Protein backbone atom coordinates (compact mmCIF):
# COMPACT_ATOMS: atom_id res chain seq x y z
CA UNK A 1 0.00 0.00 0.00
CA UNK A 2 1.11 3.50 -0.73
CA UNK A 3 2.75 5.50 2.01
CA UNK A 4 1.49 9.03 2.37
CA UNK A 5 2.57 12.32 3.82
CA UNK A 6 -0.24 14.54 5.04
CA UNK A 7 0.56 18.12 4.11
CA UNK A 8 -1.55 20.14 6.55
CA UNK A 9 -0.78 23.57 5.15
CA UNK A 10 -0.33 26.65 7.34
CA UNK A 11 -3.88 27.19 8.43
CA UNK A 12 -5.15 23.87 9.77
CA UNK A 13 -2.54 23.31 12.51
CA UNK A 14 -3.28 26.71 14.03
CA UNK A 15 -6.86 27.56 13.18
CA UNK A 16 -8.44 24.13 13.09
CA UNK A 17 -6.15 21.57 14.74
CA UNK A 18 -9.17 19.33 15.31
CA UNK A 19 -9.29 18.81 11.54
CA UNK A 20 -5.71 17.59 11.57
CA UNK A 21 -6.33 15.29 14.55
CA UNK A 22 -9.53 13.88 13.05
CA UNK A 23 -7.84 13.31 9.69
CA UNK A 24 -5.01 11.31 11.25
CA UNK A 25 -7.39 9.32 13.44
CA UNK A 26 -9.77 8.44 10.62
CA UNK A 27 -7.01 7.53 8.15
CA UNK A 28 -5.39 5.31 10.75
CA UNK A 29 -8.70 3.67 11.54
CA UNK A 30 -9.23 2.96 7.85
CA UNK A 31 -5.76 1.53 7.42
CA UNK A 32 -4.17 4.33 5.37
CA UNK A 33 -0.45 4.83 6.10
CA UNK A 34 -0.35 8.56 6.68
CA UNK A 35 2.58 10.43 8.23
CA UNK A 36 3.16 13.99 9.31
CA UNK A 37 5.42 16.12 7.17
CA UNK A 38 8.14 18.34 8.65
CA UNK A 39 10.52 21.03 7.45
CA UNK A 40 8.13 22.09 4.78
CA UNK A 41 6.94 25.57 3.85
CA UNK A 42 3.70 27.30 2.87
CA UNK A 43 2.41 26.13 -0.53
CA UNK A 44 2.25 29.74 -1.75
CA UNK A 45 -1.46 29.70 -2.54
CA UNK A 46 -3.17 32.98 -3.35
CA UNK A 47 -0.52 35.37 -2.03
CA UNK A 48 2.73 34.24 -3.66
CA UNK A 49 0.67 32.73 -6.48
CA UNK A 50 -0.73 36.14 -7.32
CA UNK A 51 2.64 37.87 -7.36
CA UNK A 52 5.12 35.61 -9.04
CA UNK A 53 4.54 32.40 -10.94
CA UNK A 54 8.06 30.99 -10.57
CA UNK A 55 8.24 31.65 -6.84
CA UNK A 56 4.87 29.96 -6.45
CA UNK A 57 6.04 26.94 -8.45
CA UNK A 58 9.15 26.74 -6.28
CA UNK A 59 7.19 26.83 -3.02
CA UNK A 60 4.78 24.05 -3.91
CA UNK A 61 7.53 22.32 -5.90
CA UNK A 62 9.69 21.99 -2.80
CA UNK A 63 6.88 20.23 -0.92
CA UNK A 64 6.48 17.79 -3.81
CA UNK A 65 10.24 17.21 -3.99
CA UNK A 66 10.44 16.44 -0.27
CA UNK A 67 7.71 13.85 -0.65
CA UNK A 68 9.62 12.36 -3.58
CA UNK A 69 12.78 12.09 -1.54
CA UNK A 70 10.91 9.99 1.02
CA UNK A 71 9.10 7.97 -1.62
CA UNK A 72 5.69 9.07 -0.46
CA UNK A 73 2.63 10.53 -2.10
CA UNK A 74 0.91 13.59 -0.65
CA UNK A 75 -2.51 13.93 0.92
CA UNK A 76 -3.76 17.51 1.19
CA UNK A 77 -6.66 18.42 3.42
CA UNK A 78 -7.09 22.08 2.49
CA UNK A 79 -8.64 23.24 -0.76
CA UNK A 80 -6.04 25.91 -1.30
CA UNK A 81 -3.12 23.55 -0.67
CA UNK A 82 -4.45 20.67 -2.73
CA UNK A 83 -5.20 23.15 -5.51
CA UNK A 84 -1.70 24.64 -5.38
CA UNK A 85 0.17 21.37 -5.20
CA UNK A 86 -1.81 19.87 -8.05
CA UNK A 87 -1.56 23.00 -10.13
CA UNK A 88 2.15 23.29 -9.65
CA UNK A 89 2.61 19.60 -10.39
CA UNK A 90 0.78 20.17 -13.64
CA UNK A 91 2.90 23.23 -14.45
CA UNK A 92 6.15 21.42 -13.70
CA UNK A 93 5.09 18.34 -15.64
CA UNK A 94 4.19 20.35 -18.74
CA UNK A 95 6.75 23.18 -18.69
CA UNK A 96 10.34 21.90 -18.89
CA UNK A 97 11.85 25.38 -18.51
CA UNK A 98 9.96 26.05 -15.32
CA UNK A 99 10.87 22.64 -13.98
CA UNK A 100 14.56 23.30 -14.67
CA UNK A 101 14.32 26.69 -12.97
CA UNK A 102 12.67 25.19 -9.87
CA UNK A 103 15.06 22.25 -9.75
CA UNK A 104 18.02 24.60 -9.86
CA UNK A 105 16.80 26.22 -6.64
CA UNK A 106 15.93 22.87 -5.06
CA UNK A 107 19.37 21.48 -5.89
CA UNK A 108 20.87 23.67 -3.16
CA UNK A 109 19.15 21.36 -0.70
CA UNK A 110 19.79 18.24 -2.75
CA UNK A 111 16.14 18.06 -3.64
CA UNK A 112 14.74 17.32 -7.07
CA UNK A 113 11.29 17.26 -8.52
CA UNK A 114 11.00 14.55 -11.14
CA UNK A 115 7.23 14.11 -11.30
CA UNK A 116 6.88 10.72 -9.62
CA UNK A 117 4.91 12.08 -6.68
CA UNK A 118 1.12 12.05 -6.72
CA UNK A 119 -1.05 14.55 -4.89
CA UNK A 120 -4.47 13.57 -3.61
CA UNK A 121 -7.09 15.46 -1.75
CA UNK A 122 -8.41 13.57 1.28
CA UNK A 123 -11.67 12.98 -0.61
CA UNK A 124 -9.86 11.00 -3.29
CA UNK A 125 -8.18 8.82 -0.68
CA UNK A 126 -11.50 8.08 0.96
CA UNK A 127 -13.32 7.32 -2.28
CA UNK A 128 -10.60 5.64 -4.35
CA UNK A 129 -8.12 4.20 -1.90
CA UNK A 130 -10.36 3.23 0.99
CA UNK A 131 -13.62 2.93 -0.92
CA UNK A 132 -17.22 3.43 0.12
CA UNK A 133 -17.70 -0.24 1.02
CA UNK A 134 -14.89 -0.18 3.54
CA UNK A 135 -16.25 3.08 4.94
CA UNK A 136 -19.68 1.50 5.31
CA UNK A 137 -18.16 -1.45 7.12
CA UNK A 138 -16.37 0.88 9.52
CA UNK A 139 -19.57 2.64 10.58
CA UNK A 140 -20.81 1.56 13.99
CA UNK A 141 -22.90 4.59 14.91
CA UNK A 142 -24.73 5.73 11.78
CA UNK A 143 -26.44 9.10 11.55
CA UNK A 144 -29.92 7.64 11.10
CA UNK A 145 -31.03 9.78 8.21
CA UNK A 146 -30.22 13.22 9.56
CA UNK A 147 -30.28 15.74 6.70
CA UNK A 148 -26.85 17.13 5.86
CA UNK A 149 -25.44 19.46 3.25
CA UNK A 150 -22.11 18.85 1.55
CA UNK A 151 -19.89 21.83 0.76
CA UNK A 152 -17.02 20.80 -1.51
CA UNK A 153 -14.87 23.89 -1.79
CA UNK A 154 -14.02 25.47 -5.09
CA UNK A 155 -10.34 24.78 -4.93
CA UNK A 156 -11.00 21.16 -4.03
CA UNK A 157 -12.98 20.49 -7.22
CA UNK A 158 -11.87 23.09 -9.78
CA UNK A 159 -10.32 23.13 -12.32
CA UNK A 160 -11.57 19.59 -12.75
CA UNK A 161 -9.07 18.62 -15.50
CA UNK A 162 -6.19 19.35 -13.15
CA UNK A 163 -7.43 18.45 -9.68
CA UNK A 164 -9.48 15.42 -10.82
CA UNK A 165 -11.44 15.11 -7.62
CA UNK A 166 -15.04 15.13 -8.73
CA UNK A 167 -17.53 16.56 -11.19
CA UNK A 168 -17.19 20.35 -10.86
CA UNK A 169 -20.89 21.04 -11.33
CA UNK A 170 -22.48 17.91 -9.83
CA UNK A 171 -20.01 16.59 -7.28
CA UNK A 172 -20.98 13.45 -5.41
CA UNK A 173 -18.13 12.25 -3.20
CA UNK A 174 -19.00 14.07 0.04
CA UNK A 175 -22.69 13.30 -0.52
CA UNK A 176 -21.83 9.62 -0.99
CA UNK A 177 -19.77 9.58 2.19
CA UNK A 178 -22.57 11.32 4.10
CA UNK A 179 -24.87 8.51 2.96
CA UNK A 180 -22.32 5.79 3.71
CA UNK A 181 -22.34 7.17 7.26
CA UNK A 182 -26.12 6.93 7.42
CA UNK A 183 -26.96 10.58 6.79
CA UNK A 184 -29.33 11.97 4.20
CA UNK A 185 -27.38 14.22 1.79
CA UNK A 186 -29.56 17.06 0.55
CA UNK A 187 -29.12 19.28 -2.48
CA UNK A 188 -29.35 23.02 -2.06
CA UNK A 189 -29.21 26.12 -4.24
CA UNK A 190 -25.70 27.26 -5.07
CA UNK A 191 -24.08 24.04 -3.91
CA UNK A 192 -20.95 24.47 -6.02
CA UNK A 193 -20.58 28.16 -5.28
CA UNK A 194 -17.73 29.45 -3.17
CA UNK A 195 -17.94 29.97 0.60
CA UNK A 196 -16.49 33.47 0.24
CA UNK A 197 -13.40 32.63 2.26
CA UNK A 198 -10.81 33.88 -0.25
CA UNK A 199 -12.55 37.26 -0.22
CA UNK A 200 -11.97 37.91 3.47
CA UNK A 201 -8.65 39.64 3.00
CA UNK A 202 -9.92 42.11 0.40
CA UNK A 203 -13.55 42.72 1.37
CA UNK A 204 -14.95 41.17 4.51
CA UNK A 205 -18.48 42.42 3.90
CA UNK A 206 -18.74 40.74 0.53
CA UNK A 207 -17.09 37.59 1.90
CA UNK A 208 -19.66 37.40 4.69
CA UNK A 209 -22.56 38.01 2.33
CA UNK A 210 -21.39 35.15 0.09
CA UNK A 211 -21.01 32.75 3.03
CA UNK A 212 -24.30 33.79 4.63
CA UNK A 213 -26.17 33.14 1.42
CA UNK A 214 -24.84 29.60 1.49
CA UNK A 215 -26.02 29.10 5.07
CA UNK A 216 -29.47 30.39 4.13
CA UNK A 217 -29.65 28.00 1.18
CA UNK A 218 -28.47 25.06 3.25
CA UNK A 219 -31.10 25.73 5.91
CA UNK A 220 -33.80 26.19 3.28
CA UNK A 221 -33.05 22.66 2.12
CA UNK A 222 -33.71 21.41 5.63
CA UNK A 223 -30.13 20.42 6.44
CA UNK A 224 -29.20 20.20 10.11
CA UNK A 225 -25.49 20.49 9.48
CA UNK A 226 -22.77 21.01 6.89
CA UNK A 227 -19.88 18.71 6.00
CA UNK A 228 -16.76 20.29 4.49
CA UNK A 229 -13.50 19.20 2.89
CA UNK A 230 -11.42 22.36 3.26
CA UNK A 231 -10.18 24.21 6.33
CA UNK A 232 -11.01 27.64 4.93
CA UNK A 233 -14.53 26.63 4.02
CA UNK A 234 -15.08 25.14 7.45
CA UNK A 235 -13.91 28.25 9.25
CA UNK A 236 -15.75 30.60 6.91
CA UNK A 237 -19.09 28.77 7.06
CA UNK A 238 -18.81 28.64 10.84
CA UNK A 239 -17.72 32.25 11.24
CA UNK A 240 -20.48 33.79 9.11
CA UNK A 241 -23.02 32.35 11.55
CA UNK A 242 -21.60 34.51 14.32
CA UNK A 243 -22.25 37.81 12.56
CA UNK A 244 -25.07 40.27 13.11
CA UNK A 245 -28.43 38.64 13.67
CA UNK A 246 -26.86 35.20 13.97
CA UNK A 247 -28.85 33.86 16.92
CA UNK A 248 -27.11 30.99 18.71
CA UNK A 249 -30.18 28.80 18.35
CA UNK A 250 -30.18 29.27 14.57
CA UNK A 251 -26.60 28.13 14.09
CA UNK A 252 -26.01 24.81 12.43
CA UNK A 253 -22.86 22.78 13.04
CA UNK A 254 -20.16 22.66 10.40
CA UNK A 255 -18.09 19.50 10.58
CA UNK A 256 -14.99 18.60 8.65
CA UNK A 257 -15.40 15.36 6.76
CA UNK A 258 -13.14 13.28 9.06
CA UNK A 259 -14.83 14.60 12.19
CA UNK A 260 -18.16 13.69 10.70
CA UNK A 261 -17.01 10.22 9.68
CA UNK A 262 -14.97 9.60 12.81
CA UNK A 263 -18.00 10.04 15.06
CA UNK A 264 -19.91 7.46 13.03
CA UNK A 265 -16.91 5.14 13.17
CA UNK A 266 -17.00 5.21 16.94
CA UNK A 267 -13.82 7.26 17.41
CA UNK A 268 -14.23 9.22 20.62
CA UNK A 269 -15.15 12.89 20.51
CA UNK A 270 -12.00 14.07 22.27
CA UNK A 271 -9.74 12.44 19.71
CA UNK A 272 -11.76 14.10 16.95
CA UNK A 273 -11.52 17.45 18.70
CA UNK A 274 -15.30 17.89 18.82
CA UNK A 275 -15.16 19.94 22.04
CA UNK A 276 -13.15 22.57 20.14
CA UNK A 277 -15.89 23.13 17.55
CA UNK A 278 -17.29 26.64 17.79
CA UNK A 279 -20.79 25.40 17.05
CA UNK A 280 -21.56 22.31 19.07
CA UNK A 281 -22.20 19.27 16.88
CA UNK A 282 -24.39 17.69 19.57
CA UNK A 283 -27.62 18.06 17.60
CA UNK A 284 -26.14 15.78 14.96
CA UNK A 285 -24.49 13.40 17.36
CA UNK A 286 -27.60 13.11 19.49
CA UNK A 287 -29.85 12.71 16.53
CA UNK A 288 -27.90 9.70 15.57
CA UNK A 289 -24.95 8.19 17.17
CA UNK A 290 -25.62 8.63 20.86
CA UNK A 291 -29.00 6.96 20.62
CA UNK A 292 -27.50 4.27 18.47
CA UNK A 293 -24.42 3.89 20.63
CA UNK A 294 -26.53 3.00 23.64
CA UNK A 295 -28.01 0.18 21.64
CA UNK A 296 -24.56 -0.96 20.58
CA UNK A 297 -23.24 -0.74 24.10
CA UNK A 298 -26.11 -2.87 25.36
CA UNK A 299 -25.42 -5.43 22.64
CA UNK A 300 -21.74 -5.49 23.52
CA UNK A 301 -22.55 -5.93 27.18
CA UNK A 302 -24.90 -8.78 26.37
CA UNK A 303 -22.13 -10.53 24.46
CA UNK A 304 -19.72 -10.35 27.37
Amino acid sequence: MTDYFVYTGCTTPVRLPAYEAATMAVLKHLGVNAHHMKDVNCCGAQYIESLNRSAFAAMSGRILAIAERFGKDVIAICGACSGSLKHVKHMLDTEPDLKAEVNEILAEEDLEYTGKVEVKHLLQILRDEVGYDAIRRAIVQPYNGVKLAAHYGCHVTRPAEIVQVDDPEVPRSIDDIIEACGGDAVDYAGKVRCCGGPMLAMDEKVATAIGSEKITNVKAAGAKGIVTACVFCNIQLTQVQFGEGGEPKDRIPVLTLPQFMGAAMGIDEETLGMPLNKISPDVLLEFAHRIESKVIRREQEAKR
Partner: protein
Amino acid sequence: MGARTETNKGLEIEHTPSSNFAKEIEAEPGGEGISKCIQCGICTASCAVSSFSDRYRPRQLIQKIIIGKRDEVLQSDLPWLCMTCRLCEERCQEGVSPAEIFQAVRHIATREGHIPEVFKSTAEKALSDGWLLGDAYSDFIEDDRDDLGLDTDLGWDNEFTHRLKKKYFSGGEGD
Protein backbone atom coordinates in the same frame (compact mmCIF):
# COMPACT_ATOMS: atom_id res chain seq x y z
CA MET B 1 -29.80 36.68 -5.01
CA GLY B 2 -28.24 40.13 -5.35
CA ALA B 3 -29.10 42.32 -8.28
CA ARG B 4 -26.76 42.19 -11.25
CA THR B 5 -27.10 45.50 -12.90
CA GLU B 6 -24.32 45.25 -15.39
CA THR B 7 -25.26 47.20 -18.49
CA ASN B 8 -24.90 45.68 -21.88
CA LYS B 9 -23.03 48.64 -23.26
CA GLY B 10 -20.00 46.43 -23.47
CA LEU B 11 -21.48 44.42 -26.28
CA GLU B 12 -20.65 47.23 -28.66
CA ILE B 13 -16.93 47.10 -28.13
CA GLU B 14 -14.89 49.90 -29.58
CA HIS B 15 -12.78 48.27 -32.20
CA THR B 16 -9.74 50.42 -31.86
CA PRO B 17 -8.06 49.53 -28.60
CA SER B 18 -6.11 52.34 -27.02
CA SER B 19 -3.09 50.10 -26.33
CA ASN B 20 -1.82 46.59 -26.98
CA PHE B 21 -2.72 45.52 -23.51
CA ALA B 22 -4.76 42.51 -24.68
CA LYS B 23 -1.73 41.28 -26.66
CA GLU B 24 0.45 41.77 -23.63
CA ILE B 25 -1.98 39.73 -21.49
CA GLU B 26 -2.14 37.08 -24.16
CA ALA B 27 1.63 36.67 -23.96
CA GLU B 28 1.56 36.22 -20.18
CA PRO B 29 1.02 32.68 -18.84
CA GLY B 30 -2.68 32.35 -18.02
CA GLY B 31 -3.72 35.21 -20.27
CA GLU B 32 -3.71 33.20 -23.51
CA GLY B 33 -7.48 32.79 -23.71
CA ILE B 34 -8.46 36.46 -23.71
CA SER B 35 -8.91 36.74 -27.47
CA LYS B 36 -11.64 34.09 -27.34
CA CYS B 37 -13.87 36.17 -25.08
CA ILE B 38 -17.11 37.14 -26.81
CA GLN B 39 -18.27 39.34 -23.92
CA CYS B 40 -21.39 37.25 -23.28
CA GLY B 41 -21.41 37.91 -19.54
CA ILE B 42 -21.91 34.34 -18.33
CA CYS B 43 -18.89 34.82 -16.05
CA THR B 44 -20.46 37.81 -14.32
CA ALA B 45 -23.75 35.93 -14.00
CA SER B 46 -22.05 33.01 -12.26
CA CYS B 47 -19.73 35.05 -10.06
CA ALA B 48 -20.45 35.07 -6.32
CA VAL B 49 -18.43 38.24 -5.84
CA SER B 50 -20.53 40.02 -8.47
CA SER B 51 -23.69 38.96 -6.63
CA PHE B 52 -22.71 40.95 -3.59
CA SER B 53 -20.33 43.65 -4.76
CA ASP B 54 -21.54 46.44 -6.97
CA ARG B 55 -18.17 47.16 -8.50
CA TYR B 56 -16.74 43.76 -9.43
CA ARG B 57 -17.79 42.43 -12.85
CA PRO B 58 -15.45 39.98 -14.56
CA ARG B 59 -16.88 40.53 -18.04
CA GLN B 60 -16.46 44.26 -17.69
CA LEU B 61 -12.92 43.90 -16.43
CA ILE B 62 -12.03 41.72 -19.41
CA GLN B 63 -13.61 44.33 -21.64
CA LYS B 64 -11.36 46.99 -20.13
CA ILE B 65 -8.37 44.86 -21.01
CA ILE B 66 -9.61 44.31 -24.55
CA ILE B 67 -10.16 48.00 -25.16
CA GLY B 68 -6.71 48.70 -23.81
CA LYS B 69 -7.23 50.45 -20.50
CA ARG B 70 -3.81 49.34 -19.32
CA ASP B 71 -3.08 51.84 -16.55
CA GLU B 72 -6.58 51.74 -15.18
CA VAL B 73 -6.60 47.93 -14.93
CA LEU B 74 -3.09 47.58 -13.54
CA GLN B 75 -3.62 50.22 -10.89
CA SER B 76 -7.05 49.01 -9.86
CA ASP B 77 -7.69 46.53 -7.06
CA LEU B 78 -10.47 44.87 -9.09
CA PRO B 79 -8.26 42.14 -10.57
CA TRP B 80 -7.35 41.23 -6.98
CA LEU B 81 -10.96 40.71 -5.95
CA CYS B 82 -11.30 37.46 -7.89
CA MET B 83 -11.45 34.49 -5.52
CA THR B 84 -10.17 32.13 -8.25
CA CYS B 85 -13.18 29.96 -7.42
CA ARG B 86 -13.29 29.16 -11.17
CA LEU B 87 -17.03 28.81 -11.46
CA CYS B 88 -16.92 31.29 -14.35
CA GLU B 89 -14.22 29.24 -16.03
CA GLU B 90 -16.37 26.14 -15.64
CA ARG B 91 -19.34 27.89 -17.22
CA CYS B 92 -17.74 30.00 -19.93
CA GLN B 93 -18.75 28.49 -23.26
CA GLU B 94 -15.73 29.90 -25.04
CA GLY B 95 -13.08 28.25 -22.90
CA VAL B 96 -11.91 31.49 -21.34
CA SER B 97 -10.80 31.60 -17.71
CA PRO B 98 -11.32 35.04 -16.17
CA ALA B 99 -9.56 33.74 -13.05
CA GLU B 100 -6.41 32.94 -15.05
CA ILE B 101 -6.59 36.21 -16.95
CA PHE B 102 -6.75 38.21 -13.72
CA GLN B 103 -3.88 36.18 -12.34
CA ALA B 104 -1.86 37.23 -15.39
CA VAL B 105 -2.89 40.85 -14.74
CA ARG B 106 -1.70 40.54 -11.13
CA HIS B 107 1.68 39.27 -12.26
CA ILE B 108 2.18 42.24 -14.56
CA ALA B 109 0.85 44.65 -11.92
CA THR B 110 3.31 43.17 -9.40
CA ARG B 111 6.23 43.77 -11.75
CA GLU B 112 5.16 47.40 -11.96
CA GLY B 113 4.76 47.73 -8.21
CA HIS B 114 0.97 47.77 -7.93
CA ILE B 115 0.16 45.27 -5.18
CA PRO B 116 -2.72 45.71 -2.72
CA GLU B 117 -1.37 46.14 0.79
CA VAL B 118 -2.85 42.92 2.17
CA PHE B 119 -1.26 40.85 -0.59
CA LYS B 120 2.06 42.57 -0.04
CA SER B 121 2.11 42.05 3.73
CA THR B 122 0.85 38.48 3.57
CA ALA B 123 3.36 37.48 0.90
CA GLU B 124 6.07 39.15 2.96
CA LYS B 125 5.05 37.03 5.96
CA ALA B 126 5.11 33.83 3.92
CA LEU B 127 8.59 34.64 2.65
CA SER B 128 10.07 35.67 5.98
CA ASP B 129 8.47 33.00 8.21
CA GLY B 130 8.07 30.24 5.64
CA TRP B 131 4.39 30.02 6.55
CA LEU B 132 1.49 32.35 7.19
CA LEU B 133 0.35 31.85 10.74
CA GLY B 134 3.49 32.32 12.79
CA ASP B 135 1.97 35.29 14.65
CA ALA B 136 -1.29 33.52 15.35
CA TYR B 137 0.28 30.41 16.85
CA SER B 138 -0.25 31.14 20.55
CA ASP B 139 0.44 29.12 23.71
CA PHE B 140 -3.28 28.61 23.90
CA ILE B 141 -3.36 26.85 20.56
CA GLU B 142 -0.25 24.90 21.50
CA ASP B 143 -2.22 23.55 24.47
CA ASP B 144 -5.09 22.57 22.21
CA ARG B 145 -2.69 20.67 19.98
CA ASP B 146 -1.17 18.99 22.97
CA ASP B 147 -4.61 17.90 24.18
CA LEU B 148 -5.34 16.51 20.73
CA GLY B 149 -2.16 14.48 20.84
CA LEU B 150 -0.60 16.53 18.04
CA ASP B 151 2.99 17.71 17.84
CA THR B 152 3.39 21.27 19.11
CA ASP B 153 6.57 21.84 17.13
CA LEU B 154 5.24 22.61 13.66
CA GLY B 155 8.70 22.64 12.12
CA TRP B 156 8.18 25.11 9.28
CA ASP B 157 11.21 25.87 7.16
CA ASN B 158 11.99 29.45 6.26
CA GLU B 159 15.50 29.22 4.83
CA PHE B 160 14.10 28.23 1.49
CA THR B 161 11.63 31.11 1.37
CA HIS B 162 14.45 33.50 2.28
CA ARG B 163 16.29 32.31 -0.79
CA LEU B 164 13.16 32.77 -2.90
CA LYS B 165 12.75 36.26 -1.55
CA LYS B 166 16.26 37.15 -2.60
CA LYS B 167 15.85 35.59 -6.02
CA TYR B 168 12.39 36.79 -6.98
CA PHE B 169 11.51 39.73 -4.81
CA SER B 170 14.67 41.65 -4.05
CA GLY B 171 14.21 45.32 -4.63
CA GLY B 172 10.56 44.82 -5.42
CA GLU B 173 7.82 43.45 -3.25
CA GLY B 174 8.36 43.52 0.45
CA ASP B 175 11.65 45.35 0.63
